[in-house]
């Protein structure tokens, strides 16, 4: 591990940290446009985070230390994931610390901690949110891994940089296995990032919220960290999707210049992806919670189909 490698690693994480809130702002902006509303500034998430940091933290009387450390651990796990996901470059030193399976494990770690913190106060909404989040999680996680397995089988590796290298250098064509996997991945990402049709990031309506119910008791810096972490999660998922299905334009060295060169390409891809996400959210309605297994089961079956198609057709 060289100093230059370490610096470019830090550069990637820093860019991820900076871009993540803007991505959320951009999705909100697109959605407002599509719904004929006046759009808030793309920098609004930044202002929210700053505002929250300046406020005094108010926590429940019976909150245990689990409740207080969770925002930091979740934020840490997401930063670690941002270091591993090949968003800008493939040859970064930390990328070998965790492959695709370990990455899914990191996301699970964050989810379990948020769920535990939600149960910590002992309110009805907290435990409701925890239960629903774990429910969505256990359905989404296998589907996500199946998508990653399909990509791993194609490239003969679970290491994300190798997968990206292999996929980026293949002939440009539509591969049926990846097409199935792509649809499945989109569905899983919607569920995992608390978007419509599984959850609604803009709601505080008691009966429908999942993610918001879990973080209901948080305020100030803890809430700011959790908001930032969920923005990072959306960013990480988007980058995984781009790396698997549109890997073109990623830097294949580990030097800072290449990374800065790859950044505009990534921003352009994210802008298109974010707009599409807003479109999906505008066009679909939220599902009842017990319709979620159908939705995620479909994603899971599509991913398995993708894998079987790969095994049968070899493409």
């Amino acid at each position, binding site marked *: 591990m060289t100093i230059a490698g370490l610096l470019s690693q830090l550069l990637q994480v820093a860019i991820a940290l900076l871009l993540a809130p803007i991505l959320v702002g951009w999705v909100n902006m697109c959605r407002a446009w599509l719904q004929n509303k006046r759009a808030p500034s793309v920098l609004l998430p930044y202002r929210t985070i700053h505002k929250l*940091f300046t406020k*005094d*933290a*108010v*926590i*429940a*009387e019976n909150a245990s230390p*689990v409740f207080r*450390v969770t925002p*930091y*651990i979740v934020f*840490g796990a997401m*930063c*670690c994931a941002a*270091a591993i996901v090949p968003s800008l470059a493939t040859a970064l030193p930390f990328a*070998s*610390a*965790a492959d695709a399976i*370990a990455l899914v*494990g*990191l996301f*699970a*770690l964050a989810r*379990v901690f948020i*769920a*535990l913190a939600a*149960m*910590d*106060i*002992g*309110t*009805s*909404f*907290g*435990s409701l949110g*925890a*239960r*629903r989040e*774990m429910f969505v*999680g*256990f359905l989404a*996680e*296998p589907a996500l*891994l*199946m998508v990653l*397995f399909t990509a791993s*089988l194609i490239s*003969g*590796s*679970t*290491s994300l*940089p190798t997968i990206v290298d292999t996929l980026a250098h293949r002939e440009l064509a539509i591969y049926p296995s990846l097409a199935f996997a792509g649809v499945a991945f989109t569905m899983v990402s919607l569920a995992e990032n608390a978007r419509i049709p599984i959850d609604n990031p803009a709601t505080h309506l008691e009966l429908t919220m999942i993610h918001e119910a879990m973080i*209901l*008791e948080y305020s*100030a810096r803890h809430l700011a*960290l959790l908001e930032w972490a969920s923005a990072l999660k959306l960013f990480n998922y988007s980058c995984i999707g781009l790396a698997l299905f549109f890997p073109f334009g990623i830097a294949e060295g580990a030097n800072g210049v290449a990374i800065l060169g790859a950044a505009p390409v990534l921003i352009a891809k994210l802008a298109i992806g974010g707009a599409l996400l807003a479109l999906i959210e505008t066009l679909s309605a939220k599902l009842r919670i*017990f319709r979620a*297994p159908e939705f995620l089961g479909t994603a899971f079956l599509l991913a398995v189909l993708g894998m*079987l198609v790969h*095994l049968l057709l070899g493409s």
Partner: protein
Amino acid sequence: MSISPLALIAAAIAAWLAIGALALVRPHALRIARSLFAAGALVGIAIAAIALVALRGHPDTMILPLGLPDLPFHLRVDALSAAFLVLLGGTSAAISLYSSGYFRAEEATAPGLICFQYHVFLAAMGLVLVADDAYMFMVAWETMALASYFLVTTDHRIPETRRAGFLYLLIAHIGAIGILLCFGVLQGGRGDYAFDAMRAVTLAGNWPSIAFFLALFGFGAKAGLLPLHVWLPEAHPAAPSPVSALMSGVMLKTAIYGLLRVTFDLLHAQLWWWGAIALAIGLLTALFGVIFAAAQTDMKRLLAYSSIENIGIIVVGIALTILFKSNVKPLLAAIALTAVLYHCVNHAFFKSLLFLATGSVMHATHERSLGKLGGLIHRMPWVAWLALVGTLAMAGLPPLNGFVSEWLLLQAFLFTPSLPQSFVNMLVPVAAAALVLTVALSAYVMVKFYGVIFLGRPREPHLAHAQDAGIRERAALAALAAGCVLLGIFPVTVITAIDHVNEQLLATTVGRGGESNWLLLAPIATDRSSYSPLIVLAVIVAVVLVTIQVVHRLWHGRMRRAPAWDCGFPLQTPRMQDTAEGFGQPIRQVFEPFFRMERHLPTPFDTKPRYAVTATDHLWHWLYLPIIRATDAVARFAGLIQRGRIAVYLTYSFVTLLALLLFVR
């Protein structure tokens, strides 16, 4: 002259027996029993240390002139048995330490007697692992079953406990018949029951398959494989917590040891379809276990079902090893076998930790039902924080130990190259999907377990007086938690040790191959797959520390406490939290066909509305009750001819004699 490790191990096992016998001298003296438990812990550490040395050495044999004339006991320690001896010694040391602070005078069985049964149980497990002939193996195996039966029924004043103990003993014996028949097949008609003789025999025709499936049946009954799992969720909750920990953490692994010994050591060649069938059974067991765990409301029953799940995962690993070995893919077989052994050790650590934690909770609160606990992290911080480590490990989260073995198993699944059986090629990815579903569900179960017991608000007023565990109990829990962390962040060291077993059974290694170093686990090559828990942990810890510093420096660290917000709802009582039933409800709904559910719903006109739902096991109704009914019918028929008058019996004898004279002549 140096003393062989085997002699030392035999001496240590004898020391366990001696400790047990000493406890009988004054069975009602609690203090003596407690110090003897502590001595047992030291013996456990000694066994683990000797076995670690033996793991590296050559196989070592010994003949003890005990038992029947002309049938001496053969002992042998090789890499496989040494690996399991390390597990036995290490785990039992912590559990013994815990026991030395756990047992109270008011148990239904005298403390000295418990101590005796406990150490006989430990010694029997040790002997199972070093046995080198079928005769001694069966003697040790049955001693183990009997000793654990008496331990399960420690609280014999409760009828359910006696019933659970009986069911356990029954299934243990049905399993023992399977093992006995398996050895009968393996000796190949020569009448020599030493394992060495069995290794020399080459079985013809279908006999190897018969031997394998008899072993799968016999050891499966002990391990809790479907459909022979029914004793496990009854016996584990009935036993005192240290005993549950020992049974779940160690005894189930002796069954895995037996299965490995028969499949890879005593049998020469494995057939691929054994693997396919074992894979199906293992996956079904794992899924079944975790789904039922999610629906449980008793904390020890929940852990018992989760043990069934983990045994399922281990059997999946064994199945993959068979599949790969029979298709001559030694490296993949070695990865799968490493995952099996790694998961055995991991499960021993985190499951013992959690069972012992439930023991402390039960002592502090006298409650076992999840619906009556809650908020214990405030009253019992030590137990709660140490149990959190076990919870995260069992949920299979990085950077703890449960994740490493699951990672290895998934690697074995993913690098399934084209096997000659195209049908298996299709099956393997789908099996991987089922495995991932199981792992994801176990995270659900663990959030339920931890959240309902330790987090939230106390559901009963008397929980406010709960006391944290004593110093010895804490030390034991801390040792197990440290084990979970160390096994999680230094996987390569552990795998290098496990490699001795790979070398013995498969003639390949994992840890030294590939591009692994002390920091990075890469069984094949870094660009194929790699995982470094230490780096992951370091990055997360670094980010957490830096974030705390930055937030507090750039902004501030002010904080105040206020009543919970809860969306502004004014009335909040602890009863408004999710109960265990509520938390399990989505699982019951999604996996409804798995359960046999009886619902009692209130009508709008009930004056005292009551809602009740019981979810039970289909297999009990489909498989066991018919067998019970058939046995009952046969017994009743036998009862018909049983008249109790000597004249009638003499008539029977006379008729039999006549019939014999007529037909046989």
